[in-house]
């Protein structure tokens, strides 16, 4: 049933939020420190565990897949409900960071590819 998947997703989500907030308070930072990341890794872990054990969850999975296809529309709704008027002054920052980061990422591709080739060559040897 779909709800089993949604419930599993909810468990991972809450587990991550609690872990993140707990770690935050441990190191003296307020807020949720990496909660969404923890949740995602827990979900990945549980998913691959069930797959390894050959437990069929394809029907429950639909409940999770539905929410994963909703993330772009939700991000659109989120963007539409931000304080964009106040952000306009910083518009140049967004453009500068976005452009520079992407161009440098392009330039790093051949550098790291070289490492990849060495890696491949070593495997062949």
């Amino acid at each position, binding site marked *: 049933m779909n709800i089993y998947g949604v419930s599993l997703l*909810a468990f991972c*989500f809450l587990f991550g*939020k609690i872990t*993140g907030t707990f770690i935050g308070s441990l190191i003296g*930072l*307020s*807020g*949720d*420190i*990496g*909660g*969404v*990341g923890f*949740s*995602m*890794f827990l*979900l*990945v*872990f549980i*998913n691959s565990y069930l797959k390894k054990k050959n437990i069929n969850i394809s029907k429950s999975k639909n409940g999770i*897949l539905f*929410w*994963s296809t909703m*993330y*772009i*529309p*939700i*991000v*659109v*709704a989120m*963007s*539409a*409900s*931000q*304080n*964009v*008027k*106040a*952000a306009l002054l*910083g518009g*140049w*920052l*967004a*453009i500068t*960071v*976005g452009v*520079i*980061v*992407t161009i440098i*990422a*392009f*330039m790093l*591709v*051949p550098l*790291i*590819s070289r*490492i990849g*080739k060495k*890696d*491949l060559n070593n495997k062949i040897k």
Partner: protein
Amino acid sequence: MIEKIIGANGLVFAFFIVGVIMYLSYLFSKKILNNIIPGAAIAIIIALFLAFLGEEKGVANLPYMGGVAVLGGSMLRDFSVVATAMGVDVSKIKQAGFSGILSLFIGVSFSFFLGVVIALFMGYSDPISLTTIGAGACTYIVGPVTGSALGASSEIIALSVATGVIKVIVTSIFTPLIASRIGLNNPNSAMIFGGLIGTTSGVAAGLAATDEKLVPYGTLTATFYTGLGCLICPSLFYFLIDLFFS
């Protein structure tokens, strides 16, 4: 009467409105831009423009539109972002190999810290804003997830989304133009490319315009990027930034 009905069913009305925005954006992307810029990026740009019509809560300040803020609130957003982890296949990370994994870590770290440095130069100085803008330099998901986890202001979150969207647009347009110069013509470099850029919609659009066969290799590493970013930006990286700038 209509006002009353919509007022009482704001979230459902938001589903309808966002669906219409998405439909028009994807149609525009496909028919007019020939898929050069992904529909998702156009939908977010339209959303940011619409938010401009309202005040501190964007369109949610306008009549009928309160439900948009509910749909786009941090709870449902984080819930759906976590759900995307279902598409991650651990056995595939082995295919990416050492260089693929290395590119992921380098991609997230350099995007973040470069974003922070540029933000510093442009006058931002509090650790939460710096971290949120750095996270936005990763992807338009990592930015707002990090920002709301740390309690950043709405305009900083909007900036981080805009930064991530610029990255998608630059990637989509320039990848096919620059591909031959950076050796982007084989599965290995496509995986590295996906790990370095990380924004899945941009990587998919850019590689599709370069060579359709490279798309699955690029998105293979890119799907790990958002999870990694959501894990280390608000934790380790925020801790470091807080150490230096508070």
